[in-house]
C-alpha cells in the first residue's frame, strides 16, 4: 500500500501513457474514440494536429490551411494549460521507450555525452529552416513520434486478401472436416506489418542506451522544444518547500531533464521555472520529505 502511495504519480503517468497507445489502437479495437496518429488524429471527431507538424506544413507548403491551424491551436491551448512538456512526460510513446532505455543506460552505457542545453533550440531552428528551403516538412520525414504512432495505429491489420479487406462470408461453414479452400483461404491470416522506418526509432534508443542518456528527448526533439517554449508561459509548475527540503538530491536521479531541479533545490527559486521540465512528477514521488508539490503559478514571483 505504502509502495503504491509512494509511486502514485508514476503509476498514474504510466496509465496515461498506456492509454495513449490504447487510443492509437482505438480503430482496431473498434472503440470509436480516436482515429489517426500523434501527428494528426480525431478525438471524438475533433481534428487535432501536432502544432509543430502544423508549423512544419506551413513552412514547407508555404500556405495557411485553417482547419489545420484550428486543430493545432486546440492542442496548443490544452498543453498551455496543463504545462508544455506534459506531452513528453505523459503522452509521447518515444519518451516512454526512452525511459526504459535510460534504465538500460545505467547498465550498458559506454559514455554519457551531454551536448549543450541550447542544442535543441539550434536543431529546432535548423529543422524549420530546412523545411523552408527544401519545401518539405523535413522533421516529419524522420519524426519518431510519427513513425511509432503510425506503426501502432496501422501496423496491426485485419485479414487481407489480394483485393483488399475480406468481407465476411455470409455462409455458415459447417464443420465437415473438409471445407473448400475458397472458404478458408490462407489470405485471411491476421498479420502484423511493421514498417522498416522503425529502425530510426531503434537507432534513437540505442544511442540512448550506449552513448547519451535521453539524448533525443533532452537535446534534439523539436516537438519537445516547441512544448518547452510553450511551457515557459504555462501556469502548472512544481513548487518546492525550501523549509522541508533537506537537499538530499535524491530527486536529481529521477529527473530526466536533470538540470531543471538544480536551481529550485539550491534555493534560488521556489518554482521549477525551467520549462524543459516534463511535469513527470517523479521528483514528488521520490522526495522523502514531501517537499515538492504540483501547483499553479499565477503571479510572477520575485527572485531573491
Amino acid at each position, binding site marked *: 500500500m505504502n509502495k503504491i502511495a509512494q509511486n502514485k504519480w508514476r503509476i498514474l503517468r504510466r496509465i496515461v501513457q498506456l492509454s495513449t497507445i490504447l487510443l492509437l489502437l482505438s480503430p482496431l479495437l473498434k472503440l470509436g474514440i480516436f482515429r489517426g496518429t500523434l501527428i494528426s488524429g480525431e478525438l471524438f471527431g475533433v481534428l487535432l494536429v501536432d502544432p509543430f507538424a502544423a508549423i512544419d506544413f506551413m513552412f514547407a507548403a508555404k500556405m495557411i490551411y485553417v482547419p489545420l491551424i484550428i486543430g493545432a491551436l486546440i492542442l496548443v491551448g490544452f498543453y498551455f494549460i496543463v504545462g508544455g512538456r506534459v506531452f513528453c512526460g505523459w503522452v509521447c510513446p518515444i519518451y516512454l521507450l526512452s525511459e526504459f532505455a535510460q534504465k538500460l543506460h545505467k547498465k550498458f552505457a559506454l559514455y554519457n555525452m551531454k551536448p549543450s542545453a541550447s542544442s535543441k533550440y539550434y536543431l529546432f531552428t535548423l529543422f524549420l529552416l530546412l523545411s523552408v528551403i527544401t519545401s518539405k516538412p523535413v522533421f516529419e520525414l524522420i519524426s519518431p513520434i510519427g513513425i511509432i504512432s503510425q506503426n501502432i495505429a496501422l501496423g496491426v491489420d485485419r485479414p487481407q486478401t489480394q483485393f483488399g479487406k475480406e468481407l465476411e462470408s455470409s455462409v455458415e461453414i459447417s464443420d465437415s472436416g473438409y471445407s*473448400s479452400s475458397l472458404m478458408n483461404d490462407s489470405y485471411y491470416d491476421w498479420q502484423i506489418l511493421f514498417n522498416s522506418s522503425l529502425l530510426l526509432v531503434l537507432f534513437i534508443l540505442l544511442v540512448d542506451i550506449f552513448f547519451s542518456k535521453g539524448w533525443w528527448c533532452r537535446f534534439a526533439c523539436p516537438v519537445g522544444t516547441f512544448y518547452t517554449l510553450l511551457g515557459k508561459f504555462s501556469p502548472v509548475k512544481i513548487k518546492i518547500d525550501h523549509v522541508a527540503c533537506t537537499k538530499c538530491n535524491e530527486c536529481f536521479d529521477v529527473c530526466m531533464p536533470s538540470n531543471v531541479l538544480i536551481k529550485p533545490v539550491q534555493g534560488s527559486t521556489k518554482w521549477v521555472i525551467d520549462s524543459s521540465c516534463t511535469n513527470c512528477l517523479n521528483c514528488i514521488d521520490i522526495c522523502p520529505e514531501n517537499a515538492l508539490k504540483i501547483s499553479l503559478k499565477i503571479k510572477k514571483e520575485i527572485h531573491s
Partner: protein
Amino acid sequence: MSTLDRRDFIKSSAASLAVASLVASCGKKKADDNLGQKLGGEVDQLGIKWDKAVCRFCGTGCGVMVGRKEDKVVATKGDPDCYSNKGLNCVKGYFLSKILYGKDRLTKPLIRKNGKLTESSWDEALDLIASKYEEILKRDGNEAVSMFGSGQWTIFEGYAALKFMKAGLGFISKDGVGSNNLDPNARMCMASAVAAFMRTFQSDEPMGSYEDIEHADTFFTWGANMAEMHPVLFSRIMDTKMKDPDNVKIIDLGTQFTRVSEESDLYLEFKPQSDLAIANYFIHYIIKNKLYDKEFVNDNCVFKKGETNIGYGLLDGGKDIPKTAGKMTKITFKQYKKFVSKFDAKYASKISGVSVEKLEEAAKFISDPKRKVVSYWTMGFNQHTRGTWVNQLVYSIHLLTGKISKPGQGPFSLTGQPSACGTAREVGTFVHRLPADLVVKNEAHRQIAADIWKIPIDKINPKVGKHTIEMFRAIDNGSIKLLWVQASNPFQSLPNLNRFTKAAIEKDCFIIVSDVYPTRSTEVADVVLPASMWIEKEGAFGNAERRTQHWNKIVTSPGEAKNEIWQMMEVAKRLKIDAHTTVADKIYNFKEETFYKELWEEYRSFSVGRAKDIAPYEVLKEKHGVVWPYVAKNDKKDFTDVWAGIENTEDSDYVSVKWRYNAKYDPYAAKFIKDHPERTFKDGIAFYKASKNDYRATVFAVPYEPAAEEPDNDYPFWLCTGRVLEHWHTGSMTMRVPELRRAVPRAVVNINPEDAKRMNIVRGDLIRVKSRRGEVVFPADVNGRTIPQKGMVFIPFFDETRLVNQITLDCYDPISKEPDYKKCAVTIEKA
C-alpha cells in the same frame, strides 16, 4: 535441334514454363480405373505430346489442344482444326488446364463418421455404398433411390449412369424394375428447350449450326448475354456485324442492359416474363401484315393451342399443376389468327413496358422477308415458368416466316454446359428418357432399349421418375433415401437452397457426391468420392451445334481419384444378383481393353437410322468433332439416290449436317422428300421426325401469363441470377484458377443506377438482399457491366461464400419442369 524452328521453340517453351510452374505433383498412379484408356498424343520436337480435347466450360464446345510432358499438362492452345472455335478461346479457356491443379483436389474417398468426413479406402466406401443400395432397394424399391447427374458428364459417363439406374438397379430392387429417378443438372438449364423442340419438331436439338452466324444479317438475342456467356460465338457475330455494319443488325431483347445490349443496334428492355407478350406481338405483326410464308406454312406447319393457367409447381409434387398442362389442341389458321389478334403493339407495350415504336422496329426486322434472321437464347427463355411456351413461340415466328433450317436463318437454342446436348439430351439422362429421343413411357421404345441392353423389357421402369426439384423435395419429404450426385454441385445451384440443404443434413437420406473439389455439395454428403476430371479420363462432349467431340485420356488423375464410370462399375460389381452374377455383368459386360469403344458402339446403336446418328468411335477419335446426324459417304446404302444433291462443307468422308430438315444439307430430309412425292416441301424443308403431326412442325398459340412471384410492396424488386464471363457456374473450377479469381473475386449485386440513387447506394456498399426464403449480403455494383432495369437486381451465382440461391424461388415450368432462376421478388437494403 537444328531442325527446330526457333520461334516455335520460344513459344512452346514459354508456354510450358508458364503451365509447368503451376503443376501440382500427381500421386501414384493406379492402373485399375483405366478401362482400356491409354495416354495418347503426338510428340512434337520439344517432347511435348499434343492431343485434342474440348473446353470444359460452356456449351460452345471450343476445341483445345493439350500438351503434356510425362504426366503433366505443360501447355494448351486453341484447336484451329475445331470448327466450333477455329483456334480461339475465351479467358476461361485460356486458363483451362489450371482447373486440374487446384490445391484442394479431392484425392481420397471420404466417409462421414461422427459428423466428420474422414479419409477412407475405396473398398470401404464402395462396400458402404453398395450395402446402402442393396438395403434401400430391397426395402423401399426403385423409387427410393436417385441420381443427380450433369451436362458436364462425358457422354460415356452419362450413358453408363443411365444404364446403371434404368437397367442395372432393376435386378436388385424389390419391385424388379430399374429406377427412373435420374435427372441431370441440365434440367435446370436446357429442359424448356428440350420440351419445346420435342413439342414442335418431335426431335430434340437445334436444326442450324454455328455457321448460321456467317450467313445471317439479323441477330435476335432473347435474354441471352452472349458477349459474356458464349464469348467466342459472340466474337463471330461481331465479325459478321463489322463486315457490314450498316446492314447487319443485332437486336437485343432483355430485362437488363448487358454487354450485348452495348453492341446492339436496337435494345428492347422488357419487364420480366413479358417476352411472351412480345413474341406474340411479333406473330401478330407477321400475320396482320401478311408477312408469313404462306407456301411454307401450308407445307410444313400445323397450328395448335396450349392449355392456360397451368400453375407454377410451387407445391410439392406439382399439386398446383393441372394434369392437362402440356396438352395441345389442334386449331385452324383462322382460329390462330384470331388468338394472336389481341396482341397488338399497344397491348404488348402495356405488358412489356417497351415503347410501341421499338416493338414495331424489332417486328420489322424479324419479319422482313429479305432478312436472314437467327434467334439466340439461353437461360432467359429456358429458366422461365413458361419456358416451353416462349421457346415454342420463337419457333412459331421462324416457322411462320419460313426462316428456319436455312443458312443464316433459324431459331438456335444455345447451351450452358459442355455436354448438355451430348450427354443429357442425346443420351437421355432425364427421368422420362432413353437415348436418342426415346422415352420410357413408350413400350416400343423400351423394347428397343431392352434389345440393345439384352435385358428383359420388364426391367425397364415405364413410370417417369422424379425430376430435379421434386427429387430434392422428396428428400425433404423422406421418400428418397439415397442420392448419388455426380459432376454437379446442386447444393449451390438449386433454387430455394435453404430448404434443400437443411433436408440433406437433417433427413435420413444417404448422399454420395462424386466430385473433384470440396463444394457446398460435398459438405452435406455422407460419402465423397474423389473423381477424375476432364482429360484425366477418356471422354466426349456434345455441344450446342450437335457436334460430338472426343478426347483421349491425357494425364492420370491425382491421388486415388477415379472416374465416375469406374465408381459406378465397382458399385455394380458389389450388387450381387445371385451367387455368380452381379449387376456389372448385366450392364457393363465389356472387355477392359475395348471398354470405351464397346460402350460407345452400344450407345451409338440407339441413334443409327433415327436421324440422330452419332459418329462411330474410330471416326470420333480421329476427327476434331463430328456433327450428327453422321452419314458416311461409304455407307450410303439408304441415300444412294439423294447423295448427289447434298452439299457438304466440312469433310469429304462424311456428311456433316449443318442444317437439319433441309434437303440440300440433310440426306434424311432429301430421302424423306423423295419418299413423299405426294407432298410439296417449300425450300426443300421437311420436318421428317414429326410423325405424329403428319410431319409438320407446330405453330403454337399461348397467351401471356404472369410470373410465379412478382414484386409487391414488401418485396419490391425482381431478382435475376446468372453468370459472368470469368467464372463458370458454381465456380468450383474457375474460382480455383488464381487469375480468374483475382479478376472477379466475389459476386456482387448489380443495381439500376436510378434505384441506387434513390436509395443512396454507391458502388461497394454492402447490400442485404432479402426474399421470403432468406437473405444474403452482397457488395453493390452500380453502372457496371450489367445494368438491370429499374426495379430489378442481378446477382451471379458462382460465389460459394454468398449463395444467391438461398433466396431464389423453386417454382418451375409445369411442362419442362425447369426452375425459374430469373424471377422472384426481393427487397434490398444497406447492410
